[in-house]
């Protein structure tokens, strides 16, 4: 009996604060160490191993160390790019690790006479498993690969076959979402023994006719802040361990503990700011935040006051004094009746924007007359237009941000001082 480990969406380099960076590294280290201890025959990582294509040196050094250990244990690692770590010019740390012989990219393209994409299987020397896959691209652009894929040649290949992919599958969606980067399962080539998925951050195992094992291990810790909220609600994170001979025998989820959590969910609907501040302060006092991540989620429509008047800074300070590891505040669904945006209609985008500004400018309480009434609407429209400018070809992110900021400041007739 052979075995392999399947992990994905590690997002190494995502965390910005040291305590969370340490957890990020620890869980990955734990997963790799378990792979070595369990003597798996190979490891699959279908994308988003790193949060960006070239993460900071700290992350790269850590990754090289762990993959060298796998290499020395004679455990090959088969990968495809994910939507976060891909590079159209092979300029990703994935390519560096591939060049070093620590990783093997299995999205190998064969020469073919037509416009279709033909892929070449990589055969694992120890087990004979035939492995192939397609990378993920940003904004679901990988769809074009699947639409042009020569699936017949993949489906007709015999033997034990694994397909790596980095994409969301529409049939496995569990929440209504406006996102369009999901694809139907029917785009995957049929008849593989195992479909190693990445991109979806929740562990899933589904079986469909022609697709016997569609598996996402989910993220190891967190690739989005919403993952932390899921963790706080009890979501287990880990990797998948698979045993097989000429077919899949067992698919097992191996959980990896990360850290303790506390979550405060507060419905501020129809309450005033004073009440909310008092209630939240009380809730914070009631929890034990020591060495934990604390999530504060406030939602609903305030009856009066500004959302910015909710004193999250005080809550953070209180928690810090009690040795909290990290505080994450989610106020995405928090609004105020006093400061709600009233929608307005129009025949086109320009008219809608003008009407929305006209409809809402009366709610703005400022002393500067040039920011109120018709002049305010005109200025707001100009500002919106300026902020919506796309980046220029070859313009770097920092340059783009600086240019937009400067233009916006100029429009507002403001100057940036040295501070």
């Amino acid at each position, binding site marked *: 009996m052979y075995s392999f480990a399947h992990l994905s969406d590690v997002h190494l380099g995502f965390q910005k604060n040291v305590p969370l960076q340490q957890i990020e590294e620890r869980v990955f280290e734990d997963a790799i160490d378990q792979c070595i201890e369990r003597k798996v025959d190979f490891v699959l990582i279908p994308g988003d191993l790193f949060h960006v294509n070239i993460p900071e040196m700290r992350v790269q050094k850590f990754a090289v160390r762990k993959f060298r250990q796998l290499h020395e244990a004679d455990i090959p690692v088969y990968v495809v790019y994910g939507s976060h770590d891909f590079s159209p010019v092979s300029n990703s740390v994935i390519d560096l690790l591939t060049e070093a012989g620590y990783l093997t990219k299995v999205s190998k*393209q064969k020469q073919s006479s037509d*416009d279709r994409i033909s892929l070449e299987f990589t055969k694992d020397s120890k087990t004979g498993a035939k492995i192939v896959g397609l990378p993920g691209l940003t904004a679901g652009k990988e769809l074009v690969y699947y639409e042009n894929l020569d699936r017949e040649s993949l489906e007709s290949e015999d033997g034990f076959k694994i397909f790596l992919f980095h994409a969301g599958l529409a049939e496995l969606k569990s929440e*209504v979402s406006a996102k369009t980067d999901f694809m139907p399962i029917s785009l995957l080539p049929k008849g593989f023994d195992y479909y190693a998925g990445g991109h979806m951050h929740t562990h899933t195992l589904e079986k469909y006719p022609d697709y016997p094992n569609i598996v996402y291990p989910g993220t190891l810790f967190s690739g989005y802040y919403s993952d932390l909220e899921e963790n706080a609600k009890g979501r287990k994170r880990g990797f998948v361990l698979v045993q097989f001979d000429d077919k899949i025998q067992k698919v097992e989820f191996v959980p990896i503990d990360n850290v303790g959590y506390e979550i405060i969910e507060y419905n501020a609907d129809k309450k005033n700011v004073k009440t909310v501040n008092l209630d939240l302060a009380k809730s914070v006092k009631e929890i034990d935040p020591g060495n934990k991540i604390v999530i504060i989620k406030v939602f609903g429509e305030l009856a009066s006051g500004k959302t910015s008047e909710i004193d999250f800074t005080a809550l953070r300070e209180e928690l810090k004094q009690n040795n909290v590891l990290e505080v994450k505040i989610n106020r995405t669904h928090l609004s105020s009746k006093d400061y709600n945006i009233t929608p307005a209609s129009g025949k086109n985008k320009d008219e809608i924007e003008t009407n929305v500004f006209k409809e809402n400018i009366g709610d703005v309480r400022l002393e500067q007359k040039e920011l109120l009434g018709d002049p305010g609407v005109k200025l707001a429209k100009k500002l919106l237009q300026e902020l919506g400018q796309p980046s220029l070809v070859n313009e770097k992110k920092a340059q783009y941000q600086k240019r937009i900021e400067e233009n916006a400041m100029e429009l507002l007739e403001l100057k940036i001082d040295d501070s």
Partner: protein
Amino acid sequence: MNEVDIVGQVIGGEFGDIVIREKSGKNLEIGDLLVSEEDNGFLILQVFSLEYGSQIKETMQQMMSGVNLEQGVVDAGFYEPEFVNYVLAKIRALARVSTAKTVTMPKTLPSFFNKLRLIASKDLEFLTKGENQILLGNVRSGTKVIDAEVWIDAQDVFSHHILIPATTGRGKSNLVKTIMWHVLDSNKVGVLILDAHDEYYGRHGVGLKDHPKAKDNLVYYTPSNPPPGCNKLTINLQSLRPDHFEGILEFSDAQWQAIRTYYKQDRDFWLARIMQEPITPVMEGINASTLAVLKRRFRLTLGLDVDDEGRVFSHNEVFDSGARGVTLADDIIQDIEAGKVVILDTSRLVDEAELIIGNIIASEIFERYKDYKVRGELERKPVVTVVIEEAPRVIGEDVLASQGNNIYSTIAREGRKFKIGLTAITQMSSVIPRAILANINTKIILGNEMAQERQAIIASASQDLSSDDRNIASLDRGEAIISSIFVPFAIPIKIPLFEDLVKKKPAADASVKQKVF
């Protein structure tokens, strides 16, 4: 007018029943469109009846025939037969076209003794194509196809409902595919097609999938073995509410009571709970026979059953009691709101299950569009049409009388206000209530040999078709008459063969081979 073009001359009759004498050898046909050139424009007229005329008395004609038949050696004939024997055609005016190309209802007779010619494409220049229109076909004069296309504004026509009445084999699916082919050109119309015969997508031949924009604008859901890029039709049982069954499945008061009780207690899981419930119900006030009937009804209509481990499953693989298909209805609605054509292959479902699935989606769209209207956002939304075959299943008089209104009848009555229409296909227009028929402002009438059905169509048409009974009966496959408030007169058309449309599609740009990273 060129003498060679003349096909007849006005010789008598009255308004709506004008008599012309056919020029010998011109062989006028029922449905031929004629032109009478008048001061300040011309009249378009249509032949609706043909009969013989003769200057010889009938008794004399009978005697002549006797001579020919009984004394075969005699080769008897008429002297200058083209003068003495001829064809009389009855025609009626359809429209008056001014020199400025304004089309109005005719209110005068053609000039007496005026010579008439067959219509030509230049006479129909007023049928110009505008933006966001759909092609219905070419103008037809009798069996002759004129080089003039009939385009109609998609938003107008779909929001005011379309009826396609025809019997089997007269080209209904060809017509629907032709209409949808043009809808796919843009994102101005969102369409939900309940495809009971799985004939529109083109799984096994040409179909809407062959449209150049199908990849972006066409979405196909099927319960089994979806082609690459298509979706599996899976609806989670949690998406079904008791009201989705209203007007579609008939339940007794006791059965409704039981359904509501389970819904109140188990909310989203009410249906699964009914199926899993032991036959002796634990719920107070529900007797065992009521529960047994409900289980049987849901088994027969939705294909639901319970496996050995107590899990609810559906034999047709469409309904799921686990985690699958939770977002399907919302995904479909998002696509429709984005102006896409969504085809649901319901060929493996029984009638009721098909209608219930349509109900889940149509009622949600209806509610959302009502809300958009309140918020002033409706104008920005695409018009929506729900294409349904055998429409009397939901808007038939007996169904509405016995089971009350359903979402389809609500759309037929009120949908127009919210930019939602029905495209109703039927062989039995006569069983649709007149109030609903009158609300359907476009009828694309295909051939129909049943007199009762023709009468129902004629009685509810947007134009006076009272003399078109025989014309409708004689429509061949692919021939139709459009009666609509959006066309100046009832236009006879020839619907293009869908396969020809597919052949004419522009060649795809040479694609660049993708590089895999």
